[in-house]
């Protein structure tokens, strides 16, 4: 089961007579898989009495220096291996060599060791990401955290991003991300380097990604590298899961659907693969109530050479199908949306230089029939973009140069058939070629890192060259405290139409800003004070201010086309405080956000608050491993109510009836308040529990979650009455939403 290969335990009793002061020694060695020469990378080697923890490097080696003379208990733990414990005796000034062989677990291992190793890995990645990027407000969420947070129906990548400090949640139903005053379409969502345009299922209620297939999400809210473009507010960079040597098969069944993931690798883990699929079944069970179905699939194939070069093929696809409101096609709202995303990436990393290149393709399609006569009201939206990029990085003394070039070729079609009755009634087709170059130079000296950079790209619509400069700086104060500042400018020329008055805007309908309209622009300033307390605690205080120019705002009246879009200027500012803890038993975060997002309508000069303007928000999450087989989690939020233009009701309106020469009073049209009202504070507590037990070679994990445990009102719990309109609680308050399911791992 475990063994020490050679002189597993060496004791050098070099006692020097007459010495009064102890001379410290070292403990070093290599960790391998039992019975093989395969090294175990990232194994945790812990000397508890000394509070010393190190991890094995890429050669499986560890080295603990400064060990005082004495006898100590030493523990070696690694994911998917049985933990090894022994006692070492260290003499004065001695060097103890300890080679350990860990026994691979024969079956699905108890979750406890997995969790310990995962949490340590998450903390390490968070710290590495923080060190690698001179940017404020960078957050990372791991697969374990995504899977562990309380769920609504089933774990959700995008909802887990909502839970981080600074996230805005407009209602229990909405899984969209609103970042620092920006709209959801202003987030650049990437999966393995390829952009995804359809980021949600079910009109925005669920994220479009299978959490079992995503290794982690890095969430850049306070600025972005010049590598990225096309979105004003944030970058959501998803890295799909890599297979490991020990093949994994895991899945789950929830009230909504079922999902399955397979992942594995060759023994040396050079060749890795992953395949995941998810499908709803609720439509088959209660299709009359829930006539909605979606499927998504993830895949990844990677190869790493002996020298560390990597080649990765990735794919992602999804479809949504729905039919509401009638028994036949003529009286139904029919729709289908889909994503097809693929990428191939090559990376070579050297000691002082690295190069990465990739090709990607992303297609998003939305087909909506949105009136009683299906054939007369078809809305089509198609986005197809292919991209190529080359990124280089070179270290020369105190200077780190990052630069590259990329080009995007694509088309965007938004076609309502020029008929009334659909979601859209215009017709536009845009094709573009968008070459770009970018570069930034990082200079490090005297505890400072200064990173000026710029990106220059051709406009998609004859606006010349768009120049996006940025500068970032970080001052390190002591070992663990930093002050980071960022100034930057971003442009966005492809946006999504969303009726700003509706709580759920429906599927994204992307359009290229018309030639007579400007590109959206954001000038951002952000500063963040960060401190790490050991490897486990981090705390951040971040201030930001944004000036937003020409942000599309759609309140269709008369016709549902681009003529109803006003390109509005606005301001957003805020303060974000957060603390995060990566503990073996307990992990989580707590945050407070003070924010403001206001705009002025370009067409009328009317000032308004962004519908996601939440002035105060306190939120947090706690993941607690109560015992090896029991995990509890909770997420909570209390926010100022946001503003909205409430729906007042319908009026009967007329159409011109030419054959009879009179008006025909057969139309119901909605009336929205022209003035905004502010909702009551929004509060919610979600809880979740998971039990783990092993049956044969399977790890079974039933879970139960309750969203909105105390049944508080959310934005759907209010009606409008009186004039000027006032929000009134409806007789039926909010209600807890239970979710249950079971996960299985082999």
């Amino acid at each position, binding site marked *: 089961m475990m063994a020490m290969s050679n002189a597993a335990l060496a004791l050098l009793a070099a006692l020097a007579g007459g010495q009064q002061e102890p001379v410290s020694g070292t403990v070093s060695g290599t960790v391998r898989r039992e019975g093989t020469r395969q090294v175990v990378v990232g194994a945790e080697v812990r000397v508890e009495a000394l509070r010393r923890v190190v991890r094995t490097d890429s050669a499986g080696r560890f080295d603990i220096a400064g060990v005082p003379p004495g006898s100590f208990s030493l523990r070696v733990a690694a994911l998917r291996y049985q933990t090894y414990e022994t006692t070492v005796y260290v003499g004065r000034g001695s060097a103890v060599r300890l080679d350990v062989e860990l026994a691979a677990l024969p079956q699905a291992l108890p979750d406890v060791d997995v969790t310990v190793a995962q949490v340590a890995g998450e903390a390490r990645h968070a710290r590495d990401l923080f060190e690698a990027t001179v940017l404020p407000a960078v957050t990372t969420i791991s697969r374990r955290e995504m899977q562990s947070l309380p769920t609504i129906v089933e774990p959700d990548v995008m909802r887990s991003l909502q839970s981080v400090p600074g996230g805005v949640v407009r209602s229990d139903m909405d899984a969209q991300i609103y970042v620092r005053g920006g709209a959801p379409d202003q987030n650049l969502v990437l999966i393995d380097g390829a952009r995804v345009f359809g980021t949600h299922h079910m009109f925005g209620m669920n994220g479009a990604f299978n959490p079992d297939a995503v290794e982690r999400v890095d969430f850049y809210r306070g600025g972005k590298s010049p590598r990225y473009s096309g979105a004003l507010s944030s970058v959501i960079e998803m890295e799909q899961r890599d297979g490991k040597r020990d093949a994994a098969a895991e899945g789950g069944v929830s009230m909504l659907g079922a999902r399955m993931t397979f992942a594995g690798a060759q023994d040396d883990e050079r060749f890795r693969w992953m395949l995941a699929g998810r499908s709803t079944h609720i439509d088959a069970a209660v299709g009359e109530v829930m006539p909605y179905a979606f499927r998504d699939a993830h895949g990844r194939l990677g190869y790493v050479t002996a020298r560390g070069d990597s080649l990765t093929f990735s794919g992602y696809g999804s479809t949504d199908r729905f039919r509401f409101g009638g028994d036949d096609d003529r009286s139904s709202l029919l729709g289908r949306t889909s994503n097809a995303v693929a990428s191939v990436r090559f990376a070579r990393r050297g000691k002082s230089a690295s190069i990465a290149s990739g090709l990607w393709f992303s297609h998003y399609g939305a087909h909506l029939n*949105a009136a009683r006569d299906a054939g007369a009201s078809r809305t089509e939206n198609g986005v197809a973009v292919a991209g190529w990029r080359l990124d280089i990085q070179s270290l020369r003394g105190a200077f780190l140069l990052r630069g590259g070039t990329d080009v995007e070729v694509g088309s965007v079609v938004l076609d309502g058939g020029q008929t009334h*009755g*659909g979601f859209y009634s215009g017709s536009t087709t845009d094709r573009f070629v968008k070459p770009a170059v970018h570069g930034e130079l990082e200079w490090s000296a005297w505890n400072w890192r200064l990173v000026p950079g710029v990106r220059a790209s051709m406009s998609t619509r004859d606006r010349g060259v768009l120049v996006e400069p940025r500068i970032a700086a970080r001052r390190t104060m002591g070992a663990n405290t930093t002050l980071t500042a960022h100034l930057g400018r971003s442009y966005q020329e492809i946006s999504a139409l969303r009726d700003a008055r509706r709580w759920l805007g429906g599927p994204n309908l992307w359009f290229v800003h018309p030639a007579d309209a400007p590109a959206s622009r954001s000038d951002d300033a952000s500063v963040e004070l960060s401190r790490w307390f050991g490897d486990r605690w981090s705390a951040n205080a971040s201030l930001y201010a944004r000036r937003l120019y020409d942000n599309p705002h759609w309140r269709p009246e008369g016709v549902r086309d681009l003529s109803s879009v006003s390109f509005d200027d606005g301001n957003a500012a805020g303060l974000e405080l957060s603390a995060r803890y990566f503990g073996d038993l307990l992990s989580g975060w707590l945050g407070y956000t003070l924010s403001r997002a206001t705009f002025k309508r370009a067409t009328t000069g009317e000032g308004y608050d962004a519908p996601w303007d939440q002035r105060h928000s306190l939120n947090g999450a706690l993941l607690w491993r109560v015992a090896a087989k029991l995990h509890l989690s909770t997420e909570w939020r209390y926010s100022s109510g946001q503003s909205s233009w409430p729906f007042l009701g319908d009026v009967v309106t007329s159409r011109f009836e030419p054959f009879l*020469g009179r008006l025909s*009073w*057969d139309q*119901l049209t909605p009336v929205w308040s022209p003035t905004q009202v502010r909702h009551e504070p929004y509060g919610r507590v979600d809880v979740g529990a998971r039990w783990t037990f092993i049956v044969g070679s399977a790890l079974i994990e039933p879970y139960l979650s309750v969203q909105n445990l105390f049944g508080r009102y959310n934005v759907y719990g209010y009606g409008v009455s009186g004039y000027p309109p006032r929000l009134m609680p409806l007789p039926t308050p909010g209600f807890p939403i239970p979710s249950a399911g079971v996960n299985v791992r082999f």
Partner: protein
Amino acid sequence: MELQLVVILDPDRASQPVLVNGMLGSSQIGRVSAAAREANVLLARDSVGISRTEGELLPCHERYGGFIGLGLRCVELDFVSIGGAEYDIEVIAEGRPAARARTVVPEQFAIVSHSIAGVLPGTVTLNAAWTSSPSAHRYVVTIRGTQYKPGYSCRPDAQCFKRWLVATPDTAISVTIDASYFEAAVGPFSLDVYAMNRDLYAYLMTGDGNSFFPVAPIQNVVGGFGVVGAWVVRSVPLQP
């Protein structure tokens, strides 16, 4: 809640009915008063009482067709509008914000020629010309019948009866009209030309309340909804 107004000023009529409505399902609108002004000069004022009287809705019914809504009120303003003039219409109801709008009435015009090749309700070629109405935004040309065929229950907006009209800024038209537009039509038929001002044209030609994503028409009532517009209608028979 705000009021919805529908007013189509017609210089060929001696009075101008003002249709006042509320939101669907809202309570009965109480006392309503309406006034018409030209250049701040009061032309007409009238009011209706707290409860609706028999016959109150008749003037609105005749001008604006059959409508639904329990809370409807109708006020008739006795004045003759004049082409090219600008009018302010204001409506005040108890407990509601005042609703007002301004509109310009198109000038009188006349159909000077028309001919039709073919036999209605078959495919026909229509030629027509009319004099100019300078304040008109569009001329809307239609062929009017008397009714749909008996038993025909499909609503025209549901695409089972094809609507035909032409909107043009010009004062002449030459167009072929397919027989399919008259499949459910009963004559005798007439040629109608409407000189619509911008407010009315925008209201009648936009919006869609017959879909899952309804969109309100373009409206010009301040403090409320609906339209205050104007038209001049000229008609000639196409069949004896």
